[in-house]
């Protein structure tokens, strides 16, 4: 039953397609893509009514900008061979995903697939990776909520993903400096094992460093450069829609199965292990967060359940395929508890990391990355390993923090002195109506035909005609707040 073309391909060295694995990667890519709208709601529910659209737009616009940039030079910079001594791939080699697509001779696009060993099409792998780049950028937006200039955000998303994310993805997953390749840092430190790769390789199954530590640090740096929201620490800034936060958490949990189990690169036993660990750590982290919250504040909250779940998802990301289900329960419970406590730190530091990107993604990412030194079933201290893996994990986490922190600072400073980081006072005051010319809800208007939308929506329809003139008389600037750090 061997088809002659298949034989030709075999002779040409083109690996066979595995439709099961390929299907799983396509599904996983779709699941991860859904995480960004999920995140948008997780974040959007947490801000005040006045700026929910802006919050959603920061995630959605990242789907726009990064989605385009990735196919242009992003994939190439991440996975197309080493350049600059293992720091980054060459942006030109696979520009526009050149040479990955199906051809007559290679109808499933496997010849140049980075995941060809599993019979996964090159474009399926690229699709999967594309969604990671998007959500990493979107994650940052939580830290800058309510005050970052929208056009600057668009520019930032393009620059940051190119200068910070793609290189880091290359270093960790593309065979670069922080991988286990023969010319990696680990090979230098721990020596080379049989086959030439590092004897001890740093572990990051699905992006604890590349995604979470990376975005967490960037968020903190931007929050620092932006300064605090007007009224921070004085005015109440409570979530305007807790069900949206929980909806977002639900979608994130769902999508994260693609994120983690998809990182197995196929639909075998490793994916199943990553699936189970993802779920279990999340469950345990939710309980851990609720418990700590109960002790510290007397109540277990819905925001806490959602946040705990996300903390667990973050923490199990680096080790989803490397620990046992019991290990994942422990990592989850730890991460949930620690993050619930860590979100209190920012107020001591005077930092306005609005939606706790630091407390959840940076801290959760570090917990999960370092925990592998203990819980990795192959090399962890609790499974008879020595301290080498722990050291390797500390190094990769530290390197990601320094790399992302330093470069984000430079990018932020340049943007601050060129385009400006912070929106105008009017925009910060009024939120969506000033920034995007729309308001999120109109529950009052439209109760009867001809209702002029009594509250907050009383409007006259005009022929659309060019620019929206700002019709508002200048608002008082009576708040004595800080402007920026």
């Amino acid at each position: 039953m061997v088809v002659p073309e298949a034989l030709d391909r075999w002779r040409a060295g083109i690996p066979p397609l595995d439709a099961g694995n390929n299907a799983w990667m396509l599904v996983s890519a779709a699941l991860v893509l859904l995480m960004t709208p999920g995140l948008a709601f997780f974040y959007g529910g947490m801000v005040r009514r006045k700026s929910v659209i802006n919050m959603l737009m920061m995630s959605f616009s990242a789907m726009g900008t990064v989605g385009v940039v990735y196919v242009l030079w992003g994939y190439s910079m991440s996975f197309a061979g080493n350049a600059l001594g293992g720091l980054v791939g060459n942006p030109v080699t696979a520009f526009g995903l050149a040479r990955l697509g199906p051809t007559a001779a290679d109808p499933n696009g496997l010849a140049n697939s980075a995941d060809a060993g599993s019979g996964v099409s090159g474009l399926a792998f690229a699709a999967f990776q594309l969604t990671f780049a998007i959500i990493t950028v979107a994650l940052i937006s939580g830290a800058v909520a309510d005050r970052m200039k929208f056009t600057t955000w668009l520019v930032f998303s393009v620059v940051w993903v190119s200068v910070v994310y793609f290189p880091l993805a290359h270093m960790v997953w593309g065979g670069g400096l922080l991988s286990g390749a023969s010319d990696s840092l680990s090979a230098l430190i721990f020596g080379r094992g049989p086959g030439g790769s590092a004897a001890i390789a740093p572990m990051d199954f699905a992006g604890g460093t590349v995604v979470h530590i990376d975005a967490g640090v960037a968020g903190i740096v931007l929050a620092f450069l932006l300064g605090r929201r007007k009224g921070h620490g004085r005015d109440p800034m409570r979530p305007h829609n807790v069900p949206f936060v929980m909806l977002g958490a639900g979608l994130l949990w769902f999508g994260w199965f693609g994120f983690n189990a998809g990182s197995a690169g196929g639909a075998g036993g490793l994916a199943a292990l990553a699936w189970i660990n993802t779920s279990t750590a999340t469950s345990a982290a939710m309980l851990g967060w609720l418990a700590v919250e109960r002790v510290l504040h007397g109540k277990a909250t819905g925001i806490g359940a959602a946040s705990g779940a996300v903390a667990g998802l973050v923490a199990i990301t680096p080790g989803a395929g490397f620990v046992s289900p019991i290990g994942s329960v422990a990592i989850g419970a730890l991460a949930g508890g620690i993050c619930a406590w860590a979100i209190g730190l920012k107020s001591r530091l005077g930092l306005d990391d609005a939606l706790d990107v630091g407390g959840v993604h940076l801290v959760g990412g570090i917990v999960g990355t370092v925990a592998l030194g203990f819980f990795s079933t192959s090399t962890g201290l609790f499974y008879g390993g020595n301290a080498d893996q722990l050291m390797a994990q500390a190094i990769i986490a530290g390197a990601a923090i320094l790399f992302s922190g330093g470069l984000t600072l430079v990018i932020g400073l340049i943007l601050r002195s060129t385009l400006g980081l912070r929106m105008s006072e009017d925009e910060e005051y009024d939120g969506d109506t000033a920034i995007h010319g729309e308001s999120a809800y109109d529950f009052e208007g439209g109760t009867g035909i001809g209702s002029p939308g009594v509250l907050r929506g009383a409007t006259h329809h005009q022929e659309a005609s060019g620019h929206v003139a700002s019709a508002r008389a200048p608002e008082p600037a009576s708040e004595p707040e800080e402007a920026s750090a």
Partner: protein
Amino acid sequence: MNLITAVIKPFKLEDVRTALLAHGVTGMTVCEASGYGRQRGHTEVYRGAEYTVELLPKVRIDLLVADEDTGDVIDAIVRAAWTGKIGDGKVWAVPVATAVRVRTGERDAAAI
């Protein structure tokens, strides 16, 4: 006794409440409201259609005060609600015939 009604900018409510507390006023009733006046609204765009929002969010405060305190309380509100920009709002007072506290049935001065 008078019923003082103040229509102010929403973000000034907290300042007004604090100022009133300092004047010994410990009760009030607050409503959301929308104001139309000299203050201009803003424009919103939906799928290419532009809307001018003419009614702006305000907060309405109603509070009963004894005759002798009325002037002071009005002044306190005006000071606390002031920003100097168009749209700061209005305060007015209406004479009240009688007032009762539901819980105790106390009347007039004792009711507030």
